[in-house]
């Protein structure tokens, strides 16, 4: 499929989710990713949006997932964990580079410094 060629352009929210997964490492599951995005970007997104995006990224082959054990603080429900596949890392790197190179030399005008 077309995205397997590595030409996938990631959406804005997809990037946030992938960064969240990367940042959380072994502990990347829905609620944790949601909180990570909330804390770092200030965007209070809904859990369904996170899972919809995770599911889509998994279908694109950028993520893999596994299911954990049930825990009591979850009412005896299981967690679904996600991790980046190599293609996911590539896609994220590309997105990051794209942003970087587009923003290069503009820091002053964007008043980010």
């Amino acid at each position, binding site marked *: 499929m077309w995205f397997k060629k590595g030409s996938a352009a990631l959406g804005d929210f997809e990037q946030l989710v992938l960064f969240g997964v990367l940042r959380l490492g072994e502990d990347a599951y829905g609620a944790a990713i*949601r*909180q990570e995005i909330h804390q770092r970007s200030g965007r209070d997104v809904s859990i369904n949006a996170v899972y*919809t995006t995770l599911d889509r990224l998994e279908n694109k082959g950028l993520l893999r997932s596994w299911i954990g054990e049930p825990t009591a603080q*979850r*009412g005896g429900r299981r967690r*679904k964990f996600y991790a980046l596949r190599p293609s996911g890392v590539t896609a994220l790197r590309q997105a990051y580079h794209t942003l970087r190179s587009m923003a290069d030399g503009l820091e002053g005008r964007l008043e980010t410094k």
Partner: protein
Amino acid sequence: MTPPARSARSGEAPPGLATRLLGWRLAPEWRDFVMGDLEEEFHARAIVSRAAARRWYWRQAVRCVAAPPPRQALVQSGDPADIFHRSPRGPFMRTLASDLRYAVRVLLRTPSFALAVIAVLALGIGANTAIFSIVNTVLLRPLPFQQSERLVRLFHVPPPDAFPGMKTFSVSAANFYDWKAGARLFEAMAIYRFRPFVITSNGHADEIMAVGAGADFFEIIGTQPALGRTFQREEDSPGRGHVVILSDGFWKRQFGGAPDVIGRTLQLDGEPYTIVGVMPRRFTVKAWGATSTDLWVPLAYTEQQRAVRENHNAQVVARLKPGVTIEQAIAEMQQISRTLEAEHPKENAGWGATVIPLQELIVGDIRLSLVVLLAAVGLVLLIACANVGNLLFARALARRKEIAIRSALGAARSRVFQQLLVEALALAAAGGALGLLLARVVLSTGRALLAQQIPRADELSIDTRVMLFALAASIVTGVLSGALPALRAGRTDLNETLKEGGRNDSAVGVRTRRLLIAGEVALSVVLLAGAGVMLRTLVALRSVDAGFDPHNVLTMRVSLPEKRYDTPQKSRAFFEAALSRIRALPGVVSAGGVDDLPMLGGSVQPIVLEGRPELLPRDQPTVEVRKVSPDYFKAMGIPVIRGRDVSDSDTEAMLVSRAAAKLLWKDEDPVGKRVTLPLESRMVLKQVVGIVGDVKQGELSGPTQASVYELTRSENVRSLTLVMRTAVPPSTVAKAAADVIRSMDADQPVEDIRTMNEVVDETLTSQRFSALLLAVFAAVALVLASVGIYSVLSYIVRGRSREIGIRSALGARTVDVVRMVIIEGMTPAVAGIAAGVVAALLAGRLLEKLLFGVSAHDPFTLFAVAGGLALVALAASIVPAWRASRVDPLIVLRGE
């Protein structure tokens, strides 16, 4: 299992309702993760603030419910076998798609069944769509004029004693101008008259109908010309009126649609008229003569013509002011009429006025017929529904094992119901699509035929409203035919069905199906009874004694142009010569002429007997006045009862009909008496030379009018319909007769060549149209009902073959078996007939106004229909009965 991290628990549970909502909405494969995450975070937040945590949880839950994560590919396999295993709580729309796919696949497995059902539904929906599109065009769509709901026509209401049965009458010029001056509730009113012209172009003469339009005529209708302009006010005066506006049709026919036609001239009655405008195609509404003519010229009345009050021969169209109701307008016109009666008692005594919406006038007569037809075709669809319902029912029962297994595996009854209903809807949708196509084909092929039967047929089309109707009809059909079988199938007793093992032979749901049969039969009775009385109306009308013999009679109209035939002598010489030549043609027995043929209406005038005073118009007796040539009565087959026919040597002679003789002279002998027709001349006395038989001058169903026939020397009769009785089929004489006219005057057109039978038939078109369609619908209903009875009985017989076998083995005779099956079939049929007769009696009221010579409750028709249907039901039962009698007990019992 990892030990529960108690520290993170707040001891507070998340909101229950929100959790339940989530559980209902989320796909099972997501439920754990999403709900777990939410609960986890809820507990974490509840430590800080329980209320805030609850608010947060609710917010998240609502967003999840609004847009849950998608189902995963594995479960979206669409595997048909999986269909009933799915979560019974799956949202309707999501399961709908897969139900639909499954339905199509199942139906494709039995294409003959699917085709049969689709064909029946296509017929039903197609017929409904076709009739509805006629209703839509004729009754629902506004006329193609600007704000057409405010367009009205004004008429006189004649004195009822002098004009029995007439509700409206043409308007006299002087009265019109007084109306116009006095009325306040009308934006404008315009007078117009039909006016024939002889048009000459390239040395060729043609008769053409034009409208003489008074001032404001085009402004009132409000349609802009396609080219040029409409008339200016000052052109409606004598001497200024030599301008002409063309219809779209005439423009294309005569000028090939040339855009530079404005400014050219037309020769009308030998005088030049300058073309100033061309009206667009949509301006032509066939059912309204004022717009469907070829040409318009200014009316251009002289002061003298405007002052004529006694001669009622003009038409009036008007536009109401916004917000004015018809009732208000009528009241105002009545008020004005009373004033005019007082001012001009001699001419206006007894003459009222009324206002009728243009739309009403154009479609009024056909409305009831169309409503009846729509109701009838709706019944056909109901019957089709019952039939298809029956088929689906049989099918659902044949599949009840499959359904039972699904139920046993956890499919909710609602899911089974939905699946079967979707199947019915899929069939109905296919039937609807095909039906729409069918309606299109029928309408486009039948357009020419329809044009004679209904107004505005040329506008017929399938628009959005018709499409929506077809869609609605399909959905209703699908639900009606699918709901009962689907409900019934959902009720299947699991244990019983599964216990039956491989057997599939006991008759289940027989009661429901009997009910469907009875309903079908009842509806058929209603339709057949309706068609029956309509056909009897037609027969009754056709057998009305019109007073003449229409067989072997050819008619044709010849209108001489005024320019060349400006004296009575010239016209009379032409017609006398033409008739004597026609009489000499081989095959022609006799020939004569009349100004207006029977049944087509004509002049109605007051008549004054010699020696009696002329009364007020209200009290003066009126008669139909026709101008005839000698031999007209012989050619038409109207008997001369007393005295003699008029002859060429007469000067001012008159024949009176039997009814006129009775009306005017009671028991005296009218022959030799003299009368005047004041509208023509108060001076000329006409002598009655004989009495002739009565003739229907108007509708066949109408009363017989008193008529007089004059042979006049003093009036210039330029338009005459020649009538010839032939010894050979009349149409074979047509060419020779027309050639006679042409040989006398190459420029003289001959119009309306048709046999008298055709003339009579054309007056019956609307009745024939309704009767024909009703008969077709009834025939379809009959076929559907008999197929229904047959299929149900066959099914019952198959289901009871074991019982029948046992009975035969125990000594039942063939006769007993046959009788049993026939009674089985006839019971619901007879119940249906009884219910149908009651329904037909109730529905008869709708038809009453369309009937003539027969009651809507005509016992003969009802008996015939009931008996006929009983016979059909019997016939439909015979094959299954015969099959039952051939059941071999050995084979059946061995099947145990």
